[in-house]
């Protein structure tokens, strides 16, 4: 696979104070983001948060209202899409219906005036990379959705672009194919060492494959960090609510320490003394050991997640909390459990 792997140094992509308006509406507010060479960065957020717009700005499919986009230090803000040297995979199927898989794949090479024989060899290698060498002569309508997105990926990779842009490429696929293909994307990305930006609204997807994730909300980046950082130390309540599952428990903060159910738990970030709600992860709740005091809850529902089990309990106050525990513990609807909070750092949100 040495031919496709870019000999060029992977690219740094910088969004420098990027602003984007659609008419009177501002959809991106002063976006600053540096993507390091060879890094896999996901833009994660609910629909309408501006993540796709940010990706389209990097691609040159939209023009920023303000700010600059740099690739390897060079300002590409005014450079049209076709001269940015990018590879892009779209959410909707974007293969050219009148061309076979191999002709679709070599399209970018033809645009770059690569000699015919070499273009065919490279395109065949690229299709092999995504596991579709056998279907090279099929037309898009003869391929399944997953196969079409694989060809689209091969087509985007074959030109060894400076940056690979993936705009929710998996969202139209069924769950099994989605997981399979995302692992393949990750494998290929690591193999080729290409700087990659991946847009998704699926937090599980983003956490599973990214080096870093930028959580976006209302046209701003709320937090950027490794999946572990986002999950364990979310910077804001929005991030805590969007990434992973949490129960909101009443907490009293004094001197940077929250009291939840009578236990002291460190607080992430600065919070003045007062009453709050704390985001507690399911795995940070457990059943009390003998002699421990805790909060009583009644089992409402329980689902098996495979190697663990998630159980929802209703407290005396009427709130429902979720906890994660080993499969061995057999929950029965109506069981009464005594729950304890582990002292793992939490994010808090003011009561109002």
């Amino acid at each position, binding site marked *: 696979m040495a031919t496709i792997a870019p000999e060029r140094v992977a690219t740094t992509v910088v969004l420098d104070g990027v602003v984007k308006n659609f008419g009177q509406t501002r959809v991106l507010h002063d976006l600053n983001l540096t993507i390091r060479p060879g890094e896999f960065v996901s833009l994660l957020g609910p629909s309408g948060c501006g993540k796709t717009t940010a990706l389209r700005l990097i691609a040159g499919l939209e023009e920023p209202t303000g700010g600059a986009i740099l690739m390897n230090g060079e300002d590409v803000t005014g450079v049209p899409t076709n001269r940015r040297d990018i*590879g892009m995979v779209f959410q909707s199927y974007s293969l050219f219906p009148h061309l076979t898989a191999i002709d679709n794949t070599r*399209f970018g090479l033809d645009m770059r005036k690569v000699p015919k024989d070499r273009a065919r060899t490279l395109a065949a290698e690229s299709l092999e990379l995504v596991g579709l060498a056998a279907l090279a002569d099929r037309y898009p309508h003869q391929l399944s959705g997953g196969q079409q997105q694989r060809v689209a990926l091969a087509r985007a990779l074959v030109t060894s672009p400076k940056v690979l842009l993936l705009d929710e490429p998996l969202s139209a696929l069924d769950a099994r194919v989605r997981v399979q293909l995302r692992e393949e994307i990750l494998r290929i990305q690591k193999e080729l060492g290409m700087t990659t930006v991946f847009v998704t609204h699926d937090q599980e997807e983003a956490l599973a494959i990214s080096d870093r994730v930028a959580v976006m909300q209302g046209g701003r980046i709320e937090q950027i960090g490794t999946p572990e950082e986002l999950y364990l130390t979310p910077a804001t309540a929005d991030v805590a609510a969007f990434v992973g599952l949490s129960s909101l428990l009443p907490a009293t903060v004094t001197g940077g320490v929250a009291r939840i159910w009578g236990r002291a738990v460190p607080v992430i970030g600065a919070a003045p003394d007062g009453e709050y709600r704390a985001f507690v992860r399911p795995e940070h709740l457990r059943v009390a050991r003998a002699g421990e005091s805790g909060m009583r809850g009644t089992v409402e529902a329980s689902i098996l997640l495979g190697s663990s089990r998630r159980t929802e309990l209703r407290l005396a106050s009427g709130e429902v909390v979720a906890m994660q525990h080993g499969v061995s513990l057999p929950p029965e609807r109506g069981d009464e459990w005594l729950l304890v909070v582990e002292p793992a750092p939490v994010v808090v949100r003011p009561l109002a």
Partner: protein
Amino acid sequence: MRRASFHPHPVTRGVIGVLVGSFVLLPLLATLEFTLRDGDAHSLVHWAAIFDPAKAATYKPIWVGLSNSLVLMLVTIAVVLLLLAPTMILVNLRFPRLRRSMEFVALLPISIPAIVLVVGLTPIYLVIGRTLGTGAWTLAFAYGITVLPFAYRSIQAAIDAVNLATLAEAARSLGASWPTVVWRVLAPNLRGGLLAASLIAVAVVLGEYTIASLLNRQNLQTALVLVNKQDAYVSVIFSLLALLFCFLLLLIIGRTGNLGAARGKDR
């Protein structure tokens, strides 16, 4: 096994087919019979007369009209393919808000009688006559307007059937310039619609009389009317041939449409 009850019985279908078919075919056969009349008998004498040097002067307008109409066909197709189609692609990709107004404007000519159109066109053709001359080919501008509703519908149907924006963006991201996007990606995928629009343009141009006659240009139809006064047989022969040619075109349109539908079904 027959699938659904609302499909007509084969016999009903056959009867309807024969009725409609004879409605179309009978006048054609009668016309053919007329061209074969030779006193009380039938012969090919009128068909042979077309190539008789002695009558060449009488038939000359037809050849002039026919060649003018062929030129008009080409220029009208050029108007459809080089002006209308790129405009529609541009509107759909970059100015989707203009789609409604464009559709309204494009469909307008269908509601304006040709004779009314001519009243409006006459002063414009005075200007055209002074700048571009009075050659028959200038009629193609007017024909571009009369063809507009039909060409617009068939191209728009093709555009609606593909994801134009994504295809264009994908091609752009792969390094294609705008002309390359249109030529190598969009045109092949709109082929059915473009072909149908061109063939409809041909059919409209071949059958047009009013505008040409009132603007004093000569085309096939005005020539047929002219020659009809001297030799009814030859003008009928040419009418028949023009009609058959149009039928053939419609058949081709139908076939290409079916091909497109068959390809779509595989999805």
